[in-house]
């Protein structure tokens, strides 16, 4: 092999050919981009296939749905930075609000456009513990016992982690009869028991389940079931604390993007179909609590243990518009109470 002019020229030609080979695909059909958060991967993988065939049956059009997953806050950031999402299905109302405020790409009234505050499914925060619950963790108070290590993601980047934080806050508030100083002490103590703050819910699950760190994982209900399914039910127990939080992960069409791409009709249908019987049953199958439980057979609802759920709209929190800056903004309660390495 002599590296002469001809070889170089040939390399250039091959390079060019490969480049066209690499780029000359797709774009022949309608595509939707769903920018979602971490634990919904499996749900939307199933739902995308179901919706595509239903759309084909209804309209004769092919639609292919692309998915992007990551920590909810990070995903919102990407959409703000220009990721061309047709729909966003995130963990928190405040993440969609952040997009609406920063880019004006989502109409401010988005939350009223779909039923149940635009949340087709709800969820809650539960405890995933090692099999047999060796450290006897049954309620929020047990998390700060000596020798208990708690795994939760970082509330600054993870939607799930914010729900964890607020659920703990709500419990402490009840426990101490509204004494905020004691509630803050509890939260500060709780985070002293957290050895690692991952950036997303899935990272924390992997830390707990695969890397075997910690005694209890504060997890989305569906994430807890999924971990138990994936790693074997003989490894973990799911503990339902007597009280937790009502998490309403919202969905919205990104108006400016669908209007630019001409995909509004299919994007709206995509979100509306989440509320259909098929969409609701898929949600239940993936351990999300359906917002229209009457559409789902009772058999499939049995898994959802009834516990006391506090809403974000409870006066304690006053909705996301208030809770977000109070607790998770710069200098908010999390910044005040979290002291790494102490």
């Amino acid at each position, binding site marked *: 092999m002599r*590296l002469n002019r001809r070889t170089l020229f040939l*390399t250039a030609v091959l*390079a060019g050919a*490969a480049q066209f080979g*690499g780029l000359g695909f*797709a774009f022949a059909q309608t595509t939707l981009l769903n920018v979602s958060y971490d634990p919904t991967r499996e749900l939307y993988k199933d739902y995308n296939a179901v919706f595509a065939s239903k759309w084909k049956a209804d309209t004769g059009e092919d639609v292919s749905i*692309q998915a992007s997953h990551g920590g909810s806050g990070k995903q919102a950031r*990407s959409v703000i*930075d220009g990721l061309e999402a047709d729909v966003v299905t995130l963990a928190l109302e405040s993440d969609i609000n952040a997009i609406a405020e920063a880019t004006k790409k989502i109409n401010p009234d988005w939350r009223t456009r779909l039923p149940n505050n635009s949340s087709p499914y709800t969820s809650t925060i539960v405890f995933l513990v090692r099999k047999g619950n060796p450290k006897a963790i049954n309620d929020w108070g047990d998390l700060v016992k000596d020798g208990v290590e708690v795994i939760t993601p970082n509330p600054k980047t993870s939607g799930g982690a914010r729900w964890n934080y607020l659920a703990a806050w709500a419990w402490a508030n009840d426990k101490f009869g509204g004494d905020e100083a004691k509630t803050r002490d509890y939260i500060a103590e709780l985070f002293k028991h957290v050895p690692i703050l991952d950036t997303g819910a899935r990272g924390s699950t992997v830390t707990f389940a*695969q890397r075997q760190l910690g005694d209890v994982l504060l997890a989305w209900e569906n994430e807890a079931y999924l971990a138990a399914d994936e790693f074997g039910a003989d490894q973990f127990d799911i503990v339902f604390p007597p009280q937790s939080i009502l998490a309403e992960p919202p969905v919205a069409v990104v108006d400016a993007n669908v209007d630019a791409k001409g995909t509004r009709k299919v994007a709206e249908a995509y979100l509306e179909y989440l509320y259909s019987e098929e969409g609701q049953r898929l949600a239940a199958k993936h351990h999300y609590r359906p917002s229209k439980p009457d559409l789902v057979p009772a058999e499939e609802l049995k898994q959802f243990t009834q516990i006391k759920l506090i809403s974000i709209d409870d006066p304690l929190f006053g909705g996301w518009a208030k809770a977000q800056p109070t607790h998770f903004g710069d200098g908010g309660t999390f910044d005040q109470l979290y002291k790494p390495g102490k």
Partner: protein
Amino acid sequence: MALEQSFAQTPLRPLKSAVTESLTTRIVLIAISLLFLALFLVTPLVMVFIQAFAGGWSTYLASLVEPDAMAAIRLTLTVAVISVPLNIVFGLAAAWAIAKFEFKGKAFLITLIDLPFSVSPVIAGLVYVLLFGGGSVLGPWLKSHGIEILFAVPGIVLATIFVTFPFVARELIPLMQDQGSGDEEAALSLGASGWQTFWYVTLPNVKWALLYGVLLCNARAMGEFGAVSVVSGHIRGLTNTMPLHVEILYNEYNAVGAFAVASLLALLALVTLVLKSFLEFRYGDEMAATAKH
């Protein structure tokens, strides 16, 4: 007295061998380096392959031909195929300018070329977000003209070029400086044109260093994670490169799939290394004559 004695007693020293250390020392040193290699290089690599084949051949192949994995492989190759040739051109031009000419600000230019080595890849990615993102001046303007940079292939290519920029230039500059411009001056005085000088004199002189730079550049272009992660948008089957796909699969509890793709990446890197060793073995003499690799 004592001094005289010591002088008298000193015999003629025998000629020492080039290696002064005792046999034990040598064995211990070699053992330490082998152990280190085994522990930190070979074992992890072997683990990757063990994990990848944990589900058998058919699962391994299935994880690679799965559409999202294929798209990731295609994208990674596309990115390498675009960014490596561009870096060859940039690297050659920069090395040529620095080695053969004297001009003001040369030291500054060398520092600039090294910049990607010292800047964290995350910053490299964020720079492009600031430059082309929705909040920037350039981003919306480009978009209104139908040009997508961020969260699309061009952004990934840009980020990759940024982090791989120094490889070719850094290989060429010391060699070309060493060689000086005597050969080129001779060629020019014999009537060769600028291009002829480049093709027939400069390029053959540096071809091994160039090839070596290209191999390094290519390995990094295919393996880059940080910068690409920031500008990718992580759209499955569209903007996920192989390293990003590995992370996604791992986070989906699909360890076998993740390590199957990882093993393919490792294989591509190994091919690069083997190619380099083969070239060194086959053309060792010729290389020694023109360079010191």
